[in-house]
């Protein structure tokens, strides 16, 4: 049945992708085998496997596409990889157990969640030095930054808060309670809202960035699945701000949400334990990491159908795509 769906989706995708599709490198961190897999976004095939430090999780790329940053959690460092040579060229002083991070819109500052130390470390990327350490709640994880770069949001998984941080003072300016185990923070492209996923709570809290209040709580329901199996993790919102995609962990699906009505319009079946998401720069594809099936799934964002799944390394965690 699933193969049939893929086949259908593939045919459909072939029809709509008639124009030239640019090829971008897709980078996937594999938590269990200490590698980053490089996949070509056009051919959807693995082109390279890079050996990295221990337990790679958070992964992002510089805005010029020249440097890849990888949280090597068990090495207590962030590794810098030259995307031309695929060599590790340096490290950033991330502080202990870096898990997730976010790069400022100007590309100069990296904000890192240090899960074991209840800190957010602020790093000057060029100088490779620590600018500040901000004490936050227990088990900091999700990191989001407003499009204007003025507000950074960190979520703490045991404290269950979204901490709003002023990036000019590095001070917390608001703490908003959300549901259990908040894992990811994603701003809308217009900066009006930040969406927070709660893994154990099973919800998305939509926080208004002006009032810093939860304006909507989105819940999920999938026929035949226990509510406990629905565990929202990664969140991505389209460039036009109209659709949000939420990875639902062991529910093996990505939810598609209309950001106007907050209604879930579709559940896309991908692979097992779907964790993080990334768009291709043209916005035409969304890529999900499926931890337990050791693959990633390319999704067509127009039809919201899966196009193809590609086997990567062991326990794929994070994903980022090179800019054009």
């Amino acid at each position, binding site marked *: 049945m699933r193969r049939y769906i893929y086949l259908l989706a593939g045919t459909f995708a072939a029809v709509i992708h008639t124009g030239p599709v640019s090829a971008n490198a897709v980078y996937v961190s594999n938590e269990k085998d200490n590698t980053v897999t490089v996949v070509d976004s056009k051919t959807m095939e693995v082109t390279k496997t890079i050996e990295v430090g221990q337990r790679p999780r958070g992964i992002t790329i510089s805005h010029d596409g020249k440097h890849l940053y990888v949280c090597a959690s068990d090495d207590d460092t962030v590794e810098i990889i030259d995307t031309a040579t695929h060599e590790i060229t340096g490290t950033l002083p991330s502080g202990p157990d870096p898990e997730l991070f976010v790069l400022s819109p100007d590309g100069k500052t990296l904000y890192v969640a240090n899960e074991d130390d209840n800190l957010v470390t602020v790093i000057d990327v060029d100088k490779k030095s620590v600018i500040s350490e901000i004490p936050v709640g227990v088990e900091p994880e999700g990191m989001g930054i407003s499009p204007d770069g003025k507000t950074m949001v960190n979520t703490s998984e045991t404290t*269950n808060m979204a901490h709003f941080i*002023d990036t000019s003072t590095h*001070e917390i300016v608001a703490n908003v309670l959300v549901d*259990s185990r908040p894992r990811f923070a994603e701003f809308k492209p217009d900066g009006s809202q930040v969406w927070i996923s709660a893994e154990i*709570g099973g919800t998305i809290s939509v926080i208004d960035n002006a009032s810093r209040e939860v304006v909507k709580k989105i819940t999920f329901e999938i026929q035949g699945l226990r509510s406990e199996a629905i565990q929202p993790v990664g969140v991505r919102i389209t460039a036009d701000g109209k659709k949000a995609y939420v990875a639902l962990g062991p529910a093996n699906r990505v939810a598609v949400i209309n950001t106007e009505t907050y209604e879930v319009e579709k559940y896309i079946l991908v692979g097992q334990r779907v964790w993080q998401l990334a768009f291709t720069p043209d916005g035409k594809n969304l890529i999900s990491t499926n931890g337990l099936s050791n693959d990633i799934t390319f999704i067509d964002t127009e039809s919201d159908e899966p196009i193809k799944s590609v086997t990567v390394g062991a326990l794929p965690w994070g994903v980022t795509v090179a800019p054009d």
Partner: protein
Amino acid sequence: MTMKSTVPNTLIFLFACFLLLVNAPQSMAQQNPATKPATEIRIGYIRAYEPQLALSVLDIPPADEGVAGAKVAINDNNTTGRFLGQSFTLDVVQTKRDEDVVPAFREMLTRGEKYVLTDISARQLLSIADLAKENGVLLFNVGSTDDILREQECRSNVFHTAPTRSMLADGLAQYLIWKQWRTWVLLYGSHEPDQLFADAIRRSAKRFGAKIVEERLYKDTGTARRTDSGVVQVQRQMPVFTQNLPAHDVVIVADESEVFGSYVPYRTWDPRPVAGTAGLIPSSWHPASEQWGGSQIQNRFVKATGRRMLGKDMQAWTAARILGEAATRTNSSDPAKIEAFIKDENFSLAAFKGQKVTFRRWNWQLRQPIFLGDGRGVISTSPQEGFLHQFSELDTLGVDQPETACKLN
């Protein structure tokens, strides 16, 4: 004259103050929550402790078992509390096993404790439960697995984060059934807790369709434990003790008192796996569990205590975190609000077990998955796939609502 000159001065002063106020960072109040006068939330902890022996030195309970978990939770609560002006403290009182705990508890009452974690026997707990209720005190049983505390002797002011023996036995039984190891032999000890664990195993066998083909009692005759001669004897004793059993898939050991159980694995007459209080052991936590964010609490615990986290540590951590969660979400230290929050049907907590843990509202037992592990790692987690329930699959573990003898008043 003087009046005329002071009025504008006052105005200027007020204006200056106003300027100062508007120029102050808008977010000051939220920026420095630590400077707010903190509301103190005291959590008591009463335990009956005496050093215990075990058949293996690796299994000797650490002196701070349980208390260490509560302390880590207090730290977690305080990190969150900084943002809300709440501070948490732990007041630990230690008595002996089988000692009268009422005087110690009365002292806790005079110190104003409203929430007390208990790691004492069922008998001791029942001696203070009603006294606690009269004084508006909530008790959290973090130590006793006795089913009776959740059944005939349940109380509306006593919550249980420790699993029951029936939950532990059901968690184990589901896995054995899933493995198709349906034919069991039961070896049980002669002390009361051993008999209670054996009862739980018998109940699970009936519930899930396993067959106990023979039972054998191992009497505690006070023989040498870890001495050289002891080991030699054991190697000869255990095969003989398990000789001539009917055909069976697995040997179940019920020996909470650590008299013979740990000697059974690898020494049975027939080569069979061992489970129960030795071999494959069910518990509320495993020191090697890394799934579901577990490595984070494990790292935190090791850093704070220098040892790995055990079941009782997790049970105490969970109880203290429940109180922290209630204080955070209600933004209050008011016992009435905290109790109402915990007793609400939507209450839940994240506890590194892959799904939220909640309370059974008919007897205030915490619903939770059961870990099955050996000395090295986690083998499986129950409930097992396929054991379905109309309300929560976690209710396939232990005494369920239709069977409960608990009547809360």
